[in-house]
């Protein structure tokens, strides 16, 4: 093709190309390359026709210069007949008929251009809490259906004023076809001005603030009384609160910040990032993150957040103040009293948060989709999710090949769902614990909404083998073929799915509890996964779990079980009686009364915590092991403190060793270092014997950074690639992805 020859091309662009300024981008490129034609959004993405003499350069720039929030998965171009009379390049109306197969963008933090306007006293959007543009702002949480167009979003009720309409229609403007665009004349309104919100916070009040995916409860993190009160009214036990500070410079006063962590903190997804606390941090109320070596920190992501910090900084003009450390630190916790889902409606917030929040700051832009903040940490050189939510949903996870459409409904706690479409898996936002009726409703809504926006009709529904999970019951009610996937198979498969592994692999599921294929209680499993099948090659030695789920909240019970295993049951009372009914628990274990044996790795962690006296009675499950990890500075090895026989890894000698340590720190370091070495020692001969070079690591214990990092490094040193959960959480939040992958491979 030579320049100067007029050609016409029809181009289909797939990926995340709606709601991110892609059509303006196309329009601008058409202007730059002198093309005529048109562009539109439809259910499959963006469709355009361009005609002119520079169509090749135009097509190259489509991807190369794409807008910041766009993700291009495929560009398919075909030549078509030239239309000689065509004039100009048009943005056509969206076509809402036809198959829906495009992505909706996740919500994004306010962009730098919008921030300059927000703090420019001369700008018409100065201090306007709802400004946004095609490069930032709400997306998934305001989208009712596709294609993504203003009438299909929560902005339907806000007709554009003349000024906004002009920007919206101007292909040269940053707000060209910005669906949620708004200004003080035509957009949503906030119930309280920033100065009033700040005054309340400074006065020690608890303020509910409507965010993108739901309400937060906020208070001054330096106000001990306010934080204690928030903890009390929220029934929060010992769970840590997240901290919002103005910027990375402010965060660095409280936490250590590596480059990767800084990028996570400042990224457009704006998750809560788990960061190592500084010893010399400024004062924080002790109730923010009791006893923990980490803080969950996040930066402002809505204009409302920014305005509060702007107010606290004295309302400076311009954005220079945003580079400086700011003293204000806010507790920001999701407004979900009593373990219910996040409040999203104004009336709902007034009803449910009465008696909790002193002030409720809301606005008239509805939240369509509930989404908690995402939580991530930097782990072994890359980010890993602890919870996946706002800012990441509904970003798809790429699979190694196209599979039939399947719905997977996850586990029981920290539930998520997953839908496959082609070679993509759409993992939902964190839903919650399904004992709760409102959370179960949220699960059902999420299934309906995700299937709807993706346009998927699943051919099967995958679920856990546990008969009493609400998710299992829901799956059975759907009237579709069901596929039961064993819990730890799903954990391992989730990692294989996100890493695109098609070959056979060994998996270690280091987990709390899952119903095994033999009906027993599993949780420390070595599985050989081949395609959609799994074979159990080994497991951790079994400990009695006296009291079932109760033992997961009372680690001292697992210490008692470990003492029985050591043949030292007669020491239970003398060692553990201060934590609870030790004699009764001894009898339960020795008599086998509601003390089912489990191969759970999580329960071995609990046993170590119980022996070391680290939260022998926990406020929430997982609290004790989190604190144990928090004590570790440098993992240490107790050589030979484990046994491997017939595929069973027995850590009893390690726990015996813990009975003799000087303090909990020594014990925590020995436990982490030795467990890591033992797991590697257990798995390596199997890997070598079978000629395998991959090991997938998953399960709730991989939330433990010391263990995950130690295993990744240890296996790498032995020439084995250890795959960690990255795009889905290691805990049950990732189960649905694994279920979907296993089920779709079997279809």
């Amino acid at each position, binding site marked *: 093709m030579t320049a100067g020859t007029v050609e016409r091309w029809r181009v289909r662009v797939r990926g995340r190309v709606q709601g991110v300024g892609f059509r303006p981008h196309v329009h601008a490129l058409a202007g730059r390359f002198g093309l005529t034609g048109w562009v539109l959004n439809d259910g499959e993405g963006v469709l355009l026709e361009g005609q002119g003499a520079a169509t090749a350069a135009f097509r190259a720039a489509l991807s190369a210069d794409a807008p910041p929030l766009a993700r291009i998965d495929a560009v398919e171009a075909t030549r078509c007949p030239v239309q000689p009379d065509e004039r100009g390049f048009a943005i056509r109306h969206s076509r809402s008929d036809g198959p829906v197969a495009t992505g909706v963008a996740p919500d994004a933090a306010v962009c730098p251009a919008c921030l300059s306007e927000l703090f420019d006293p001369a700008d018409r959007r100065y201090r306007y809490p709802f400004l946004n543009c095609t490069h930032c702002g709400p997306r998934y949480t305001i989208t009712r259906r596709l294609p993504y167009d203003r009438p299909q979003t929560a902005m339907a009720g806000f007709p554009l004023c003349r000024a906004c309409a002009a920007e919206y229609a101007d292909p040269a403007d940053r707000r060209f076809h910005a669906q949620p665009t708004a200004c003080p004349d035509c957009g949503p309104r906030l119930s309280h001005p920033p100065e009033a919100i700040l005054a309340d916070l400074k006065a020690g009040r608890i303020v509910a603030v409507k965010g993108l995916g739901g309400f937060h409860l906020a208070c001054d993190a330096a106000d001990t009384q306010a934080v204690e009160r928030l903890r009390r009214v929220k029934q929060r036990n010992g769970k840590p609160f997240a901290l919002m500070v103005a910027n990375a410079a402010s965060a660095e006063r409280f936490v250590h910040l590596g480059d990767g962590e800084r990028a996570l903190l400042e990224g457009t997804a704006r998750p809560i990032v788990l960061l190592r606390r500084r010893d010399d941090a400024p004062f924080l109320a002790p109730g923010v993150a009791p006893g923990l070596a980490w803080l969950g920190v996040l930066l402002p992501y809505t204009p409302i957040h920014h305005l509060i910090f702007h107010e606290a900084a004295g309302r400076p003009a311009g954005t220079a103040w945003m580079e400086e450390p700011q003293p204000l630190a806010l507790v920001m916790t999701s407004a979900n009293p009593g373990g219910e889902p996040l409040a999203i409606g104004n009336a709902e917030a007034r009803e449910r948060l009465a008696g909790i929040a002193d002030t409720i700051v809301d606005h008239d832009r509805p939240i369509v989709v509930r989404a908690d903040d995402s939580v991530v940490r930097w782990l072994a050189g890359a980010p890993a999710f602890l919870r996946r939510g706002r800012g990441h949903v509904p970003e798809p996870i790429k699979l190694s090949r196209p599979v039939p459409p399947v719905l997977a409904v996850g586990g029981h706690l920290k539930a998520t769902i997953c839908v496959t479409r082609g070679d993509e898996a759409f993992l939902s936002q964190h839903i919650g614990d399904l004992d709760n009726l409102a959370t179960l409703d949220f699960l059902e809504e999420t299934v309906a909404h995700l299937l709807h926006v993706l346009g998927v009709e699943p051919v099967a529904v995958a679920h856990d083998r546990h008969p009493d999970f609400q998710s299992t019951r829901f799956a059975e009610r759907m009237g579709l073929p069901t596929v039961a996937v064993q819990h730890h198979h799903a954990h391992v498969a989730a990692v294989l799915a996100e890493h695109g592994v098609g070959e056979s692999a060994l998996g270690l599921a280091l987990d709390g509890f899952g119903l095994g294929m033999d009906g027993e209680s599993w949780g420390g499993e070595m599985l050989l996964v081949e395609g959609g099948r799994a074979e159990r090659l080994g497991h951790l030695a079994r400990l009695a779990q006296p009291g079932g*789920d109760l033992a997961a909240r009372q680690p001292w019970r697992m210490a008692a079980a470990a003492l029985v295993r050591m043949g030292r049951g007669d020491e239970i009372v003398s060692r553990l009686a201060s934590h609870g009914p030790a004699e009764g628990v001894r009898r339960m274990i020795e008599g086998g009364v509601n003390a089912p044996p489990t191969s759970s790795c999580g329960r071995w962690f609990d046993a170590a915590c119980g022996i070391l006296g680290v939260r022998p009675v926990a406020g929430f499950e997982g609290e004790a092991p989190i604190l144990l990890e928090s004590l570790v500075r440098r993992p240490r090895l107790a050589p030979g403190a484990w046994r491997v026989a017939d595929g069973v890894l027995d850590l009893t000698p390690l726990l015996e060793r813990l009975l003799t340590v000087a303090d909990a720190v020594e014990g925590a370091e020995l436990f982490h270092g030795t467990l890591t070495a033992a797991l590697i020692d257990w798995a390596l001969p199997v890997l070598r014997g079978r000629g395998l070079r991959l090991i997938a690591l998953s399960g709730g214990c991989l939330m433990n950074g010391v263990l995950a990092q130690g295993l990744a490094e240890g296996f790498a040193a032995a020439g084995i690639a250890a795959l960690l959960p990255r795009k889905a959480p290691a805990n049950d939040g990732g189960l649905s992805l694994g279920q979907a992958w296993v089920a779709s491979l079997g279809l």
Partner: protein
Amino acid sequence: LAHGGGGSAMRDLVEDVFVSAFAVHEEGQPLEDQARLSLAELMARGDRLAFTTDSFVVDPLEFAGGDIGKLAVCGTVNDLAVGGAVPVALSCAVVIEEGMAVATLRRIAASIARTAREAGVRVVTGDTKVVARGACDKLFITTSGVGVIRTGLDLGIARARPGDVVLINGPLGDHGAAIMAARGELAVSAPVASDCAPLNGLIGALLDAAPGTRLIRDATRGGLAAVLNEMAEASNIGVRVAESAIPIRPEVRGFCDLLGLDPLYLGNEGVAVAVVPPEQADAALAALRAHPLGVLAAAIGTATAERPGRVVMDTPFGGTRIVDMLVGDPLPRIC
């Protein structure tokens, strides 16, 4: 003791023990192969016959507050009573493992007789079999019973309506806790006695006070959770209960806290769940509380039009918990 044919020593002894305890024949009447009940007497008491049967196996045979004999009488009496029937007569068939201690047998037989007297029913026919060691576990008892349902009553699991009030006569879990404690493995003394009791008197008083009662169930195996779920499903209603309203003795709560058990799922042998229309709820509750077996009676929730088939409990923390029927034994769920 010798094992073998019809004339063995044990066989004779057993016949002696049980037949004397049952008092199966009327004074001066020869023993026949069947009990004979006067139709005229039955018809004077109501217009329908209720008939039920149940087999009883329990380990251990004797426990705080009861034994297998008392259980066998109460179980069948209660199954009749919850249908609105006045129990009239029972049969009792006993399968005994050879080698059973005779003293234990005597105590159990006496317990059967005593409980029947207390309930105001007669054991009108019976049977005993002795089987070889290992062919059964110590002692199995099967009781059947007939009763008469009074005219005009219509109790049914599918009859609950939105707005109805759910009542129970007493605290949950006493029986389940007593049985678990009595098992040797735990080697603890029972925190409470079993609630095992004939409920026909209590239910009679309830029906007198609240003739519009929709349904009554005894919360035996599967506990309160099972009854509430069955009724939600059969009546196509939702059930909403308040955790704070459900009576549970502190000793039972403590026992459950040790064992990690949920009292909602523990079996009971003296707990009746009644659903009454709202306008009769106060009278029903008063009648229950006036009876010795209903001192701790409580209104624990209501039937709702929302969420048919689902049982939901409001927790003291302002949350809701789904109370489901379990497929099997409770399994851990925390991962």
